[in-house]
């Protein structure tokens, strides 16, 4: 089986070239989830990233985390300024490129929960939809039945007004999994743990020469339609950015100095008074 992993960079609200070039924490968890598929099911892993950076440290970390077989970098000035749907279009093309190279379809595509900067959580499900894959979000664990070609996944649903919900869901492959921040893999047999160690060692060595593995694609290379990507392909624009209006001070704080022993004493006295409800406000 095969699995891909997508790490996405800014959603257009930020200047890409000034954004730190490293693997975001959510994307890292996505590569860990892909690594689980490698160890347990012998998956071949392709990692793709859309980024303005030519030498991509994010891809190195991804390779080291999941022992990736293929690294893709999608880089073109025309990708810039895209909102989530314009970004999803490029990454969809990226996954299709991976599939073309492998001459087979992906079984699972992983993404992080959210990009750390844009913070919308929309890109993953939109790539899934464009690829026609069943989308499973907030996945905290998963397993594959290779014979039945199904995935069983546990999803954590956070909803306001009710306790958290854990949903167990079964879906035929292929699927798109957006991994929950709380995901952690467990290898419960000795042989899996040994093989994990083996892959980790291999990953570490490979990632020293990660640049050798990187294949870079521009718009033409991906065959992405001009009108569907970048600013032109984005329905939304950022119209205005302002500081959140500072509310009126609702309390009039007494300002004390944390390095002054007397002030520390006053604070602790206030703690005790507050707890004995002696504070008159």
């Amino acid at each position, binding site marked *: 089986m095969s699995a891909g992993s997508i790490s996405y960079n800014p959603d257009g609200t930020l200047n890409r070239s000034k954004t730190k070039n490293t693997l975001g924490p959510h994307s890292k968890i996505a590569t860990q989830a892909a690594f689980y598929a490698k160890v347990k099911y012998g998956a071949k892993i392709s990692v793709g990233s859309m980024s303005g950076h030519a030498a991509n440290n994010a891809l190195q970390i991804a390779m080291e985390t999941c022992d990736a077989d293929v690294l893709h970098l999608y880089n073109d000035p025309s990708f810039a300024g895209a909102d989530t749907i314009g970004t999803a279009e490029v990454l969809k093309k990226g996954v299709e490129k991976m599939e073309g190279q492998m001459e087979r379809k992906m079984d699972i595509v992983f993404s992080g929960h959210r990009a750390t900067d844009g913070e919308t959580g929309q890109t993953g499900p939109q790539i899934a939809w464009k690829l026609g894959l069943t989308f*499973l*979000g907030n996945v905290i664990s998963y397993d594959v039945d290779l014979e039945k070609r199904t995935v069983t996944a546990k999803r954590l649903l956070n909803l306001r*007004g009710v306790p958290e919900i854990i949903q167990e869901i079964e879906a035929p492959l292929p699927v798109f999994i957006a991994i929950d921040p709380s995901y952690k893999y467990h290898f419960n047999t000795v042989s899996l743990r040994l093989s994990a160690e083996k892959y980790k060692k291999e990953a570490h060595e490979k990632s020293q020469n990660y640049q050798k593995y990187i294949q870079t694609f521009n718009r033409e290379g991906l065959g992405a339609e001009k009108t569907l990507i970048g600013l032109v392909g984005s329905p939304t624009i950022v119209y205005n950015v302002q500081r959140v209006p500072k509310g009126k001070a609702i309390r009039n704080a007494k300002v004390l100095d944390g390095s002054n022993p007397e002030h520390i004493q006053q*604070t*602790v006295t206030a703690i005790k008074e507050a707890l004995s409800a002696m504070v008159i406000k």
Partner: protein
Amino acid sequence: MTEGDYRHVYVVIEHIDGKLLPVSLEMLGEARRLFDDFNSRYSSKEKVVAVLLGHNIQHLSQILIEHGADSVVIVDRPEVAALINKIHTKVICQICLDIETAAKIEPAYAMEFKRPRYMFFAADGIGRHLSSTVLAELDSGLASDVNQLIISDLDISHPVKTGGKHIVYKKTLEMYRVDFSGFLWTTILCLDNINENLSMREYSPQSCNIIPGAFQPIKPDPERKGKVIEFSPKIDEEDLKIKVLSQKFVENEIDFDNYKTVVGFGRGIQDAPEKNIKLIEEFAKQLNAQVGISLPIAKNVFTASPAISSKYMIPARVVGTSGHKISPMLYIVFGVSGAMQHVSGMEDSQFVISVNADENAPIRDVSDIFLKGRMEDVLPLLSEELKKQQITVQVK
């Protein structure tokens, strides 16, 4: 574009086992307020439409009407009972594009109807993904985590959208969202491309997902009348192979209500997360306090040992809009700057002490005592002093 192409606001309702989630009525409330104003300003008859999917949910229609819906489009069938993104996405898109349904909602202009004008979803574990896939299918724009909405006619000049020309976009939904830091408020617009040299394209519906708790429901009116419209979707047999095997509530193990004191922390831990959280842990123990966190801490941005991170850096401890709303007798908070998102969760605390290195941090404005300093320096001093004063009390 004609007057009838894009009409109404469709609100996607969420419920669990036939019980409405509060955000559903909040979204309806905001849609009602916006559309009462919209209809009088533009002399139109556009409607607030609740979209309701599930099984054995007929009883919810009346509640939705009392809370502001003009119409409820309902799909009450076992195939849509479970929360399965793929099935719900397809059914909602069918509803959005169905002219017959639009004609039942409002006969005027119904034959020109193409799509809804606006669409609202909840920014939660269901709506966040559902809105993304629905809008990917409808190929239109989506803003997430919205907490303010305004409808207006805007004079826009944009290099791509208008080719630099000034064009007035009528009935534009200004969607305000707070970014990750909590201090920048961004206005997102979903606009047609009206650029003859580059691209001519209409984008509808203008859509957003809305933060639970951001808006108020309206006062329910049992006399309000509305239409209930049954919709029969086409369901792909293939999609029924996706099955929910089980769905369980996990009781939230973090209880804030039974503690007099809550000790909170935020990004101020960053220089030494492990060490700082241990200091917090000890301090909270001294005060028999529950420990809360600000949202960024739950996002795995800071690293600590598994023992610490799995106990403290978890969503269940978040105080704020996307977590708990607390009101302890005493809230002591370290290294939290005071983003709106956090403040709305703690402002009802009876007494607030904040510790922050930045004297201008907004948390100061919601504090009774503001102690200037870095948490790693101040915490040991407070702990020490607390021990001393407790001893004094005991000696007396």
